[in-house]
């Protein structure tokens, strides 16, 4: 019998209970509460902040993807921006205006271009994976970095697709049953897009959480902890590294398809050279700050990174020596950039498990309160 004992939330009578999706009552209520608060947030928060939070939700999808690859399977990738770019361009190609300046198929059915972007990025991941599975550790990091450099060049040059440097192209327009989400109606554009992103993120998060507690997830962990040992135990290294790459790229593609929807426009500069690498590093920062190999950590990290520009723009009122003028130093843009570096270093030095680790510590403290253990 797999019954739960009343009043003993941590007492499991079956393995399935321990591995359940939300294995404790507080977790169940907690998740319900967080989702409810997240869903009701647009009613109270101003639109400009909501836009930032929406971007954070989209980035969280990409961060979950990178966490599947880097956190769960231990394959360091600095090339996440490339797969995000593949997704962004596929989505805008499928949904784009066929008669416009840039190529497009004119298929505006939203689930199709979101999934199409994911699948295209996954295919790109599958193409890269055979080279990547031969490499380990830092070699892999540098090779994936090369993807960003080469990909950025290709996208910039492919003018019919990307619109070319300094010009860019339109992002896909999200519509549900013919209703354009980017037009203010009963609810504003920011509110509607926020809800859209939230729904997609929840689907992606549940899927990732389920992968993490399945056979595939356990294989990933084995590969991460010691790939040779995993191979000896019968985990097919090539297969699972390939799966990790494909899954991670799929998430990146979905993230890319939605990333520019709020702006309605994006240029290839976003993915090439220094900016492309910065995007990759931002994703790395998200999973390290949030918490490696956790879905909730990816979301927390992505929200923090998305809020960083806003936080640094608020800083001058507290720290008067920081200016808002871009020709004086130190200005808020420099502070924002430097904060990525500072946060990465600080978290790795002092809290390697990230925000998830902070939460974990708080939780264990209160669990046994007032005793320290």
């Amino acid at each position, binding site marked *: 019998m797999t019954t739960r004992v009343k009043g003993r939330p941590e007492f499991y009578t079956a393995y399935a209970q321990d591995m359940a999706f939300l294995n404790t009552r507080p977790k169940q209520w907690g998740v319900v509460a967080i989702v409810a608060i997240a869903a009701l947030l647009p009613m109270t928060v101003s639109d400009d902040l909501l836009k930032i939070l929406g971007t954070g939700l989209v980035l969280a999808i990409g961060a979950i993807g990178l966490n599947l690859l880097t956190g769960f399977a*231990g394959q*360091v990738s600095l090339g996440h921006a490339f797969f995000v770019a593949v997704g962004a361009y596929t989505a805008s190609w499928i949904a784009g205006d066929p008669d416009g300046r840039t190529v497009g198929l004119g298929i505006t059915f939203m689930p199709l271009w979101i999934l199409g972007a994911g699948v295209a990025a996954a295919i790109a991941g599958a193409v890269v994976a055979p*080279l990547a599975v*031969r*490499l*380990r*550790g*830092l*070699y892999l*990091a*540098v*090779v994936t*970095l*090369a993807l960003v*450099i*080469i990909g950025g*060049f290709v996208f*910039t*040059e492919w003018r019919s697709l990307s619109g070319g440097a300094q010009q860019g192209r339109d992002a896909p327009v999200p519509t549900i049953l013919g209703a354009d989400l980017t037009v203010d109606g009963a609810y504003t554009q920011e509110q509607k897009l926020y809800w859209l992103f939230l729904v997609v993120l929840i689907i992606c998060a549940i899927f990732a959480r389920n992968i993490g507690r399945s056979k595939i997830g356990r294989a990933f962990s084995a590969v991460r902890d*010691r790939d*040779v*040992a995993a191979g*000896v135990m019968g985990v097919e290294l090539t297969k699972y590294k390939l799966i990790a790459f494909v899954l991670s790229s799929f998430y990146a593609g979905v993230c890319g398809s939605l990333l520019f929807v709020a702006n309605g426009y994006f240029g290839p500069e976003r993915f090439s*050279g*220094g900016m492309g*690498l910065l995007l990759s*590093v931002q994703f*790395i920062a998200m999973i*390290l700050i949030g918490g490696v190999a956790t879905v909730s950590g990816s979301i927390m990290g992505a929200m923090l990174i998305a809020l960083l520009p806003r936080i640094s723009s608020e800083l001058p009122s507290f720290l008067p020596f920081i200016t808002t003028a871009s*020709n004086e*130093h*130190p200005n808020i843009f*420099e502070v924002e*950039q*430097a904060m*990525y*570096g*500072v*946060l*990465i*270093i600080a978290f*790795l*030095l002092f809290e*390697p498990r990230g925000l998830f680790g902070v939460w974990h510590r708080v939780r264990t403290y209160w669990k046994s309160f007032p005793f320290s253990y």
Partner: protein
Amino acid sequence: MTELLSAVAAGLGQGSIYTLLALGFVIIYKSMGVISFAQPALMMAGAILVSYWSPKLGFWPAVILGGLAIAVVALVIERLAIRPMVGKAVFVIAIITIGVDIIVRVVAGAFVGTDPRSIGDPWGLGRWHIGGVAIQHRHAAAFIAAAVIVTLVAAFFRYTSIGLAMRAAALDQEAAMTQGVSVGVVFAVSWAMAGFLAAVAGVFAAAGNSLDQNLWIVGLAALPVIILGGLDSLLGAVVGGLVIGVVEALVRNYHSDIFPGIATNTGPLAPYVVMLLVLLVRPYGLFGTKEVERV
């Protein structure tokens, strides 16, 4: 033919810069087993520092002092951010160096300003013509400087006691410690050397150009070089640097013949493509030691 030789000469000059940078990467990798992604930023910081000092002190004193100053910066980075992480996963340390890179780049970039800065080098764009082959002074200078520095580094590892200690630590850290080698000193010296090399490379990379944030992108091209040569091979850094430099210069020169349809020059992509092609055949680079896998 003269066009080809001119391109090769320019490539050897550029390759010397890559060699200097790559040596720094390899020295750090050999001592700690980590790629320092902070090297490109240190290179940019070095060039910017020299551009401030050379009008006051003269070019050569500024290069030496700038190199030493960046070496001190690298020492501080190593002590504050890297040393506490010794023994942790190499990936984690590599990511920390990415964080360091961002910070150094932002701080150094704040001193670039909007006016184009010059490094104050004595060469400019002057060139010799030897039988129709154009050789730029700055490329010749970079090549000679790289040759001298590579010789000095090789001699340092071969003949000094700290060089011997570093070789011992690279071979087997624990065994070296039991023989009385201070691994901390080895780490510090390797970071200082890498910082100095990065600053010197930055000076040559900025010579003849105006100085801006794009110098950092040049520094990134040293990553394909070390992967091509093998992460733990000093010889690989030298050979890889020169090969990548020449290939890049050739592609840059003949770009319009090879790819007539592409407007932007494909030269900067060449290092990465060469790296990918070599990795398909040799996953540990040309001279890298194959990792022995033990469980």
